[in-house]
Each structure stands twice: as structure tokens, then as C-alpha cells.
């Protein structure tokens, strides 16, 4: 069973990565884009997500040579879109309270693509009480803390109070599992992603929460798979890979593989998929990112990887 999970997860991930790579130009910034970004969720955020997928393929290094090459090229493409970090630097200069330049920088920094001026600016701004006190959802605070950890702003783990940040999340309340909703589902997945740094630190999830997630994750995957919410299902499958005792079920992988299109597109949900190539990419790029990450981590964990390789 484990062998079949490994193979299916690899195939889904490799095809999703190849699809992201093949269509990467559709996700490029306009030539006249500035750091001001009228619509940061339009292209800027998706570029960071593609870079995240590529960086985790490279971090885990469990894919074949082709996939590693595609991941490197995809990462380089995204980095070039951000003008090798200049754009992130300019955006952080212009908007000191915003955390997205730091968060977007993470996959590049993780892969050795650094920007010296941005490093200096982030070290300054991220330590300011004004920035640290900016109001945001609890799981978003964990995203910032993990970003700081990966970029190297919190190397001794003492700058951020991880226990307090964790306690503020929905997950930490170990809530009634039968009242979760779609948006809260995403809050849970991201709480786990950041506490474990995307599966690199499974023990970053406190034991009580790991037990809770292990108990209810199969239910949540089941009910959202039934209504074909593939994006959330694949995020929950990443969560399974982040647990100290990973949950990687063959049936889940067979179902996601069946939903994947022959060209590698992974539909975000059960709605009809557009024919227009640009629209297809805009609609389903996030789910391809999620599927590539889920598959990469599933391969790694089923082969015995336990993270802690930072």
C-alpha cells in the first residue's frame, strides 16, 4: 500500500509541477508592474505560491532529475519576475507594516536566492513593535513567525512566542470537529503548515494537537472529497504529511489522481473547467501548487523522511 501511495503521489506531483512550469508565463507580472500592486492577489501572490512549490520540491529532493530541473527553472522564473528581489525590497520600503514581502521571500531564501538589502530591511522592520503588533488572524501570525524562522530572523526561536501564537488559533482549542467549515478548514491547514514548516518539523505541532488532527483529518478529507473541494482536500493531505505519524491514505491519492486532468491540471473543485488557457491557469494554479507540495511531501514521508533537515 505504501509503495502505491509513493508512486501515485509522485505522479500527481510531477504532473502538477510540469503543468505549473509549462504555463508559468501566463502567471507573469505585467511589464509595467511596480511594487505598489493594485491587486496583490492577482499575480504577485500566485507567483510566490509557485515558488513555494518549487522550493519544497528542491528541499525534499525526492523527485527525479527532470522534476528537480523544472522546479529550479520555475523558482528562477518567479525570482526574475520579482527582479531578483528588488521588487520585494521596494514593496517592503513602501509598506513597512506589510508582511507579504517577508513571506514571499521565504521560498527563495530557502533555496539560496538572497537579496542583501532586503535582508537588512527585514531585520529592521520585523523587530519593530509596530510591525509585530499589526492585527491579523492567528494562523497568519504563525505564517510570519515561520517566515522569519526560515529567512533567519529568528534563528534561536526566541523572538516569537510560538506557544502563545499557537494557543490563539482555532485548532489549539481542539474544537468540536463536527462544526468546522470551509474557511476554518483552511485556517487549520495553515496552522499546521507553519508550525511544522511544511512538514520539515513534524514535532513543531504540539502532541495534543497532533493527536486531535490525526483523529479528525480522515473525516474532513472524506467530506470535502465528497463535494469535490479538491483544493482543500489536497491541503488537508499536506497536513497528513506534516504529522509526526504521517497520514497518507492510498484511497485519498487514488481519488486525487483521478481528478487530475491528463495535462497535469488539478481542478480546484467540481465545477466545469474553462477552455481558455489563461483562465485555466488563473483558476487552478493554486490547486496545482497544493498538489505538487502534497505529492512531494507524501513521497518523502512514505520513504521515511522525517524532516528536521533545515
Amino acid at each position, binding site marked *: *500500500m505504501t509503495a502505491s501511495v509513493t508512486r501515485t503521489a509522485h505522479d500527481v506531483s510531477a504532473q502538477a509541477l510540469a503543468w505549473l512550469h509549462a504555463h508559468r508565463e501566463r502567471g507573469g507580472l505585467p511589464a509595467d508592474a511596480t511594487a505598489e500592486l493594485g491587486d496583490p492577489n492577482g499575480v504577485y501572490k500566485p507567483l510566490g505560491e509557485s515558488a513555494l512549490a518549487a522550493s519544497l520540491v528542491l528541499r525534499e529532493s525526492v523527485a527525479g532529475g527532470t522534476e528537480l530541473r523544472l522546479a529550479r527553472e520555475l523558482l528562477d522564473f518567479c525570482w526574475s519576475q520579482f527582479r531578483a528581489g528588488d521588487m520585494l525590497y521596494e514593496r517592503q520600503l513602501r509598506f513597512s507594516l506589510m508582511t507579504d514581502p517577508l513571506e514571499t521571500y521565504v521560498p527563495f531564501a530557502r533555496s539560496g536566492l538572497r537579496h542583501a538589502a532586503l535582508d537588512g530591511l527585514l531585520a529592521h522592520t520585523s523587530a519593530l513593535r509596530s510591525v509585530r503588533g499589526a492585527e491579523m488572524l492567528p494562523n497568519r501570525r504563525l505564517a510570519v513567525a515561520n517566515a522569519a524562522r526560515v529567512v533567519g530572523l529568528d534563528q534561536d526561536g526566541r523572538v516569537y512566542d510560538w506557544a502563545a501564537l499557537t494557543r490563539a488559533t482555532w485548532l489549539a482549542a481542539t474544537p468540536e470537529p*463536527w*462544526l*468546522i467549515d470551509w474557511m476554518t478548514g483552511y485556517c487549520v491547514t495553515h496552522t499546521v503548515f507553519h508550525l511544522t514548516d511544511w512538514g520539515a518539523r513534524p514535532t513543531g505541532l504540539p502532541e495534543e494537537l497532533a493527536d486531535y488532527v490525526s483523529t479528525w483529518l*480522515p473525516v474532513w478529507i*472524506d467530506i470535502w472529497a465528497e463535494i469535490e473541494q479538491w483544493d482543500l482536500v489536497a491541503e488537508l493531505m499536506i497536513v497528513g504529511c506534516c504529522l509526526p505519524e504521517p497520514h497518507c491514505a*492510498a*484511497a485519498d491519492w487514488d481519488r486525487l489522481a483521478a481528478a487530475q486532468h491528463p495535462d497535469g491540471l488539478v481542478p480546484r473543485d467540481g465545477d466545469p473547467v474553462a477552455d481558455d488557457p489563461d483562465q485555466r491557469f488563473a483558476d487552478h494554479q493554486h490547486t496545482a501548487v497544493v498538489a505538487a507540495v502534497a505529492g512531494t511531501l507524501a513521497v518523502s514521508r512514505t520513504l521515511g523522511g522525517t524532516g528536521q533537515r533545515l
Partner: protein
Amino acid sequence: MSPDRSQAAYAASAADLALRALDALQGAGGTAMVADHVERTDDPKAALAAIRIVGADVFAPCLLAGEGLHPADAAAVAQSFAVFPPPVSTPAPPPAGAAEPWLAAWRDWGTASLLARFAGTDTGAMPVGTDADGIPAAAEGTERNGPVTAGVAGALAPRPTGAPQLAEAGSDPAETTWQTWSTRMGQLSPLALPGLESPVHAMARAAPQALARGATRAVLRRDFPTAARVARWLALLAAEGEPLPLDPAPLVEHLRLHGGGPRLALDVAIARRLLGVEDV
């Protein structure tokens, strides 16, 4: 009457009987509610079928509210077995046999077992004594399934073999997943009463997590009737002091406030009794 129409008539009559059981459980007792149900109808056959659909839950007022079993009620339940006799030999458990006849055989066993007990044909005790919590002493004692009960019950409905099977993911996806298993346990919810004991009860005790997952899944799918049926088992385990992965009390209250229909109301009321939640 066509089979479909008779099934609809049976279901409607079962809803009516469930309401009568609910009233009796909530203290509006003192009448022969099962016999009344059969007598005050223009479709006695449907009324007798309804007894078998509601099943052992017609004894819930006896088990949980300290009501005695009216002799006329005992006669009505016995008549239901005479008019709709169970198969002579019990159906094979799935996957060898079809699930539904086997589940029905289990429900019949539960009904026949409690009839034998409360009608006094096994021990002569009617009604059973209850302790200070309103839970029958039999539920907490060791005489969960005495040979006499099984023998007399067997005369009306023999005990089927097997119990719903649960396996680790991947071995037999369709038959033994927690999803299928918990749904079947919900279909056996009339057995989730104190004082009955069987391999089905042993399975419930062995798999509280699968029950809790099944109830959670049903709530999230807005399938409140199934959730309430599975919650019955969780409430029974809670009454027995078994540790559970979730607190059944808010779950049952959620179902009471969100669900509808007589069957769900009866399941919820029984679960509340098991949990010691007082009716307001």
C-alpha cells in the same frame, strides 16, 4: 397496496409510534402506548410493522424512565412477531449476505430480547429495578445477556452471527471502512440501550474513535438522523464510563436543535437520558 405504498405507510406509522415512545420517555406515560398505537389506527398491519421498525426503542421508557411494561404492549409486540415472523434462520452477515436483512435480524433480536425480559418470560421481573440514576440495574451488572433471555428471545428472533466489521484503511475499502461501519452501527441504534449485550455492543466499545468519526461525518454532511443514531452509541459508551474522543453532550444538543422528525427526536431523547441530561 403496492410495496412502495405499504413501505410509506409503515414509515408513517413508525414515525407516529416513535412520537408515542418519546412521550412515554418524557413522562407522559401510564398508558399502553404500543397497544394504543395498534388499536387506534385504520391500518393495523402498518402499525404492527411500525413496532418492528422502532424496534427495541419501544422499551426505552421501561429502561430509561422506570415505566413498567403494560401487558397490552407486550401482547402488541408479540403480535407483531406473529404477523411478521423473522426468517427461521438468521441471514449471513455481510459481505457474504446482504446487509439490510442481517441488520433487521439484529434489530429483531434486540426487540425480542427486551420483550422476553419485560414480559417476564425469562426472569419474571417486570419491570426491572432501576437505580438512583434511572439506569436499570441490569445495565451496570454482569447479567447482560443471561442464557434464559437469549433462549426465550431466540424463540421469537434468534441472535444473528457476527457484528459490523471494522478494519484498518486499505484492506477492504467498501465493506470495513469507518464510514460504512459507523453507518451500519447507526442502523443498529435501537440496540444502543442499557441492558442489551451482544457482539455489536462489544464492537462499539472497541471502536469509539470510528463511532465519533461517523457521527462527525454525518453532522458535517447535514445527515442529522444518521448523526443522532450514531450518537446513541457514543452516549451509551459515555454512560458506561468509556473514554471518548469527543464530548457527546454538545453533539446531542446540536442535533436536538438542528435536526427534525420523530425518529431523530426519539434518538436524541434517549441519548440525553443516557448522558444524564435532564429534560426541561
